[in-house]
């Protein structure tokens, strides 16, 4: 029984939250990795693209709620998501036209492109705040729980609670669907294949008649879609606040680099490595230890790092990987 209790505690406080968070990071990292491998620069504006996309989704959700449209037990935001994706992708294409296109034409060095994206980041930062403000917003509606603590206790008679929120399930399911669709698109369709060719060898791809403008446009559309989905899932699961999304940039980049930047499989693996490290290293293991080792209660909390250091965990992993294995877990490419 004690062993089961320990298992439930780990699941409740580490495995479930880390899995949902990992899926959100993975979707974010996929967007970063895609831009990196095809457009060849680190897109610092990605966090704020997520914030913008989520802001649009929230506005549309409010519109739906005002009109009385709901999605049954599922959050209304999922209905608003496609509209959010269209608007965000349009913004991406517009930004490319106004900003990035010029720097591609003059064949700017990657580091220049990175600085350009920092500029774009500040503009989008402001745009999001004009659009939706700086406050924290909760926009999840529908059923909150799949299993809540009381139901669990009544069902199993165990003292340790286990809860599973519907947003956590939605996050993981949506992430799986999106990743499947993306890999199918990149591996099976003509456009997807031309994108991979462009990423592998730009000159050769151009020689074989691939239209670079089309590849760039499709990349931005997919990036916009990924950012909006990742942002909306994060906001549903936690809450929306423009500044939090800006802060997400660090764990997202850490995920992409740990997995091997430019490699989609790596981005997903990296997302989970980062999320499990963040949650696992800052979790106080006292309860679990007490369950597992009978007749011994540790004095301290058996916590490696205080929760204040959550971001330090991603940063440390990022540095370690860059020093010892710059190509990441799944051989990415370094320009």
């Amino acid at each position, binding site marked *: 029984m004690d062993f089961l209790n320990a298992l439930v505690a780990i699941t*409740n406080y580490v495995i479930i*939250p880390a899995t949902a968070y990992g899926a959100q990071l993975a979707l974010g990292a996929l967007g970063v990795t895609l831009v990196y491998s095809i457009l060849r620069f680190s897109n610092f504006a990605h966090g704020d693209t997520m914030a913008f996309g989520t802001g649009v989704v929230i506005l549309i959700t409010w519109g739906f709620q005002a009109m009385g449209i709901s999605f049954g037990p599922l959050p209304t935001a999922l209905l608003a998501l496609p509209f959010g994706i269209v608007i965000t992708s349009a913004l991406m294409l517009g930004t490319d036209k106004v900003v990035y296109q010029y720097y591609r034409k003059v064949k700017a060095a990657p580091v220049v492109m990175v600085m350009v994206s920092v500029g774009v980041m500040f503009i989008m930062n402001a745009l999001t705040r004009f659009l939706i403000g700086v406050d924290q917003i909760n926009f999840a509606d529908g059923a909150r729980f799949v299993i809540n603590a009381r139901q669990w206790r009544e069902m199993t008679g165990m003292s340790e609670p286990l809860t599973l929120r519907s947003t956590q399930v939605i996050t993981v399911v949506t992430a799986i669907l999106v990743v499947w669709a993306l890999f199918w698109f990149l591996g099976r369709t003509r456009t997807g294949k031309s994108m991979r060719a462009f990423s592998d060898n730009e000159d050769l791809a151009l020689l074989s008649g691939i239209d670079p403008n089309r590849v760039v446009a499709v990349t931005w559309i997919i990036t916009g879609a990924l950012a909006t989905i990742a942002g909306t899932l994060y906001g549903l699961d936690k809450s929306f606040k423009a500044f939090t999304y800006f802060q997400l940039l660090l764990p997202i980049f850490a995920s992409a680099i740990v997995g091997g930047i430019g490699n989609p499989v790596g981005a997903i693996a990296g997302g989970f490595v980062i999320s499990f490290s963040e949650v696992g290293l*800052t*979790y106080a293991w006292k*309860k679990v230890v007490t369950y597992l080792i009978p007749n011994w209660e540790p004095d301290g909390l058996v916590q490696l790092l205080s929760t204040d250091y*959550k971001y330090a965990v991603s940063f440390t992993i990022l540095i370690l990987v860059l020093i010892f294995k710059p190509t990441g877990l799944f051989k990415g490419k370094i320009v």
Partner: protein
Amino acid sequence: MKKILLASAAIAFGATGAYADDVKMGVLLGFTGPLESLAPGMAKGAEMAIKEVSESGKLLGGDTVTPIEADSTCVDAAAATAAGETLVTSDKVSGIVGAMCSGATTAVLQNVAMANGMVMISPSATSPALTTLPDDGLFFRTAPSDARQGDVMADEILEKGIKSVAVTYTNNDYGKGLADSFEKAYEAKGGKVTISAAHEDGKGDYSAEVGSLASAGGDALVIAGYVDQGGSGILRGALDTGAFSKFVFPDGMVSQTLQDNFGSEINGSFGQLPDSAGQGMQTYLGMAKAAGYDGSSAYSGGSYDAAALIMLAMEAANSTDPKVYKDKIMDIANGPGEKIYPGELAKGLELIKEGKPIDYEGATAIKLIGNGEAAGTFREIEIKDGKIETVKYR
């Protein structure tokens, strides 16, 4: 030539000094910044007391009093110091009601008030650090220290038979001060604090924080945070994961927002906030209503009391010099003597003139203890059927 100028200047100053019948009083509050919504109600409270005394014509044989507003902000110590400096050196005030937040108050006290011998009475600075800060007897507050709240909260929890709690606090002077004072009081009375962990405001996700709190365990969770900030995030996380089912809410958490967002989910949880009941407060609320503002806004009554205390002390000392009347403030506030409530300031001034002692009760039933801070009454609340209900005052 220079001498003549100096002499005439001296005469001019001497003249204004001798025949002055207009006393200036600084109202130094955070009109801009994170607590700007509270400042107007406080300023109106102070100014109502000033007007009452001015119109009575009984202060020091007919002096009038003019309030001078200045912005202490809440978080910018430099701006607060500059505003305080202007009040003292250029507006030549004889006393200051303020400042508002604990940090700004400390800055003005150390840089301006102590340097110039100016009396400050803050209606709203609650940091325990101000209790022990050297102040040359110039600083008072009509708000209770958070140390007192820690003590009250410890009693409340123990009376409910809860022997161990986890504590989380917002990572600033208010949260840390309150958490520390609570921990000290609670453990001295026999309770056990399993963990006292800070949380940062404005984060999206508090599952890691809730995880460590849950692991440490305890029969209840004390959330010394802000309801519009991380406090709600922690509460939501703790409810969602089933980590705690009973919560204790200090003043930063008790508000309409708490009731609206959590309602019946937190039935049986409880808390407290500085608030006073009784005759003084009722009278004050009526006066505020007549004057066209909401007197129940936080610390508004305390501001009235702060201004009233300064003016009554001036009468008692027969001087508007802060260095002289500062010694009278404790006597006026603590009695013994006839009790003076809001709206009776003229009566208070008369009694003092006749040489009779008074005990200024004011809107908030003022009782100054220790270094000159309010003992403080707290309203204990409990959440019943999704509603915040008053249990009692203590």
